[in-house]
């Protein structure tokens, strides 16, 4: 059960009834099967994010069933799956934004409340009102509010930090723009900069590439790679199957339950895609074929 390969993982995500401790430790490992990776798999306490047997239901309709997942120590992880697969819910339930029906979530081995400062969240761009009367810099500075603390105003020092985060995403020239005057891609980069300003170790991003222009996509990929090189972990909900292999070294395939998770070259197979996306076989075969993925 403890070998970090996909089929075991799929087996362990069987349902809410499953409760094996070994199963919780199993699902992922680093990109190689090195001793360190095995060590991490055996001690999920050190994982930036471990989700154990999580079930989430809205009203009486279940959205996620018995998800077991341990994020790798560092690297870029794509969460993929069809619409309604529970990708956004996975992130939001982990962050206590929607109540969990069952299961447990640990960040760096601790409850979220004590580890917030190590975790940054990038919500979907469409989740806020971009007509709000604030500038790009104001939004990025919001990533520092926790550090600033109650009642204290945003000072020059914080504005400089925020400006620095903006320049990391190539938006330094736009810092005084009101946010409705930014393009969708620029707005997405502002959100990313807000997360960067938090200087976290784990980043949870909900569709950072949704509806962005090519320049933004390049800028975001650049930032993700920088984060990886600094040993950070990024989990991103992703929709473009064509770029999964290029951008991400780990992948989580989700369709209400965890279909597979692991290093991209192992988990991102035509067979797993078929099991994730179900009916839309023809399309997937073509995508898989185009990417030269071996199925069976």
């Amino acid at each position, binding site marked *: 059960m403890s070998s970090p390969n996909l089929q075991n993982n799929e087996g362990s995500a069987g349902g809410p009834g499953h409760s094996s401790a070994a199963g919780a430790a199993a699902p992922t490992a680093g990109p190689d099967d090195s001793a360190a990776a095995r060590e991490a798999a055996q001690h999920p306490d050190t994982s930036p994010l471990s989700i154990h047997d999580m079930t989430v239901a809205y*009203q009486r309709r279940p959205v996620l069933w018995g998800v077991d997942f341990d994020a790798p120590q560092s690297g870029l992880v794509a969460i993929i799956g069809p619409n309604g697969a529970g990708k956004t819910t996975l992130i*939001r339930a982990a*962050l*206590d*934004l929607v109540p969990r029906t069952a299961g447990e979530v640990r960040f760096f081995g601790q409850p979220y*409340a004590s580890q*917030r400062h190590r*975790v940054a*969240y990038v*919500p979907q761009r469409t*989740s*806020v*009102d971009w007509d*709000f*009367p*604030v*500038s790009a810099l*104001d*939004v990025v500075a*919001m990533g520092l*509010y*926790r550090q*600033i603390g*109650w*009642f*204290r*105003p*945003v000072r020059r020092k914080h504005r400089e930090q925020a400006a620095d985060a903006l320049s990391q995403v190539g938006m330094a020239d736009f810092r005084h723009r*009101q946010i*409705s005057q930014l393009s969708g891609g620029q707005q997405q980069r502002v959100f990313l900069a*807000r997360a960067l300003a938090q200087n976290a170790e784990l980043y949870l991003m909900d569709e950072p590439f949704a509806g962005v222009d090519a320049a933004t996509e390049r800028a975001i990929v650049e930032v993700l790679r920088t984060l990886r090189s600094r040993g950070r972990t990024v989990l991103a909900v992703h929709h473009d199957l064509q770029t999964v292999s290029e951008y991400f070294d780990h992948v989580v395939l989700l369709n209400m339950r965890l279909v597979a998770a692991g290093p991209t070259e192992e988990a991102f197979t035509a067979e797993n895609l078929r099991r994730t996306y179900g009916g839309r076989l023809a399309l997937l075969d073509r995508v898989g074929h185009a990417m030269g993925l071996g199925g069976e």
Partner: protein
Amino acid sequence: MNGFLFSSAMLPVAETLFAALQLPAYNTQVVLAGTFLLGVAAAVTGTFMLLRGQALAGDVVSHATLAGVVLAFMVAEMFQAGSGRSLAVLLTGAFLAGGAAIGLTTFILRTTRIRQDAAMAISLGVFYGLGISLLTVAEDFPTGNVAGLSHFLEGMTASLRLSDVQLIGSLSLLAIVLCGVLFKELRLLSFDRDFAATQGWPVGLLDLVLIGLIVLVAVVGLKAVGAVLVVALLIIPPAAARFWSDRLSRMILASAVIGGASAVCGTVISTMLPSLAAGAVIVLSGAVLFCLSLAFGTERGLVWQAVHHRRTTRRVDRQHLLRAVYEIIEQQPEPGEQGSRYGEGEKPDRPHPEPDIRHRPVNRAQLQNCRRWVPARLERSLKQSIREGMLEPVGADAWQLTEDGAVSAQRIVRNHRLWEMYLISQVDIPPSHVDRDADDVEHFLPPDVIESLSRQFAASSPGGQIPASPHLLPPAEQ
């Protein structure tokens, strides 16, 4: 900046009103101070309420307060006859009822699948109906005079006593100070509540504080403007302020100025014309300021937008004109050169030498042929270009580029063609369609984009030369 400009513009107005009033009546000044503070408090609190999307919550609260006022009156009278006239007692009741109405709304939302607007309408109706029914019951109450209670429905500014104003003023100040102290927190809550929650901010508590402030202001405004109109004090000033600024701090300032000014105007007008209810006049003053903001607001006012739009259209027209002049000249044989620059249907080789474009007059027929101009628009663009020193008339119906005009024309054509080439190479638009697509954007290309395009197509425009048109130009008449 806009907010500050606006506030300095409004101050003289308030001063003039004070001067025009010239009523030494102490009572008027007291009332004025009270309504002014109320107006500012409502405007500041209302800004967060509006941005948080809770405008309807204000309506629920204000309608619900009536029930609280009447209940508090009845309870107090039962304990001690006459104590039901204490404003503090009545406002406490109103505050509790407002909170209860929000509680009911939240309960409906959490336990059922009824949507928010419906849940609010239910609470509003239930509590307002309760208030009206209790009012008729209170009329039969053995002790005390119930007549004052109906004032809470329509407001009775003139009947405010010094003690009332002290209460209203201090509660208003409390609301203003709380908004100031919690500015950063309320801004975050209003913009992105989920993000605030992940950061560990107690969003539930902050929600409660904001709704508490709304209830407080609604309650404070009860006696001055009445339950039904108080919500207008919360909503109109911030809605008007949005036309003056797109920064929250300045928007709040503008909102406070508008709220304070409408309170002062309304109070003064109703003092001069006592038959008018002050609450209604305050709200109408706010509405007038809203209309002025809608028209003349520096950020989104309709007048500025129209001016801006017209300016842009004309600029684009003039750029089209200069490009047309350039392209007409480009297709003509150079003086001393034989035949057209390009053969029939032949795609020009790039790069090509730039034509000498000065001292080469073009006439109206050529321009008209180059582009489907509306004659009047062409005429206006011609006149404006002459005024700007871009073109100069040569004879009756012909014009040539000035030195400035030649420089501008070259820049415009170069940008246009770089953009066309970008569209063809990156966006897969066929060359035959590219002219029209390029037209829309080329006028708004920022310098850095031009820079990167020039680098990208350096081969076609060595040394910043103008590349040849990637498509056939309309034949110019000779």
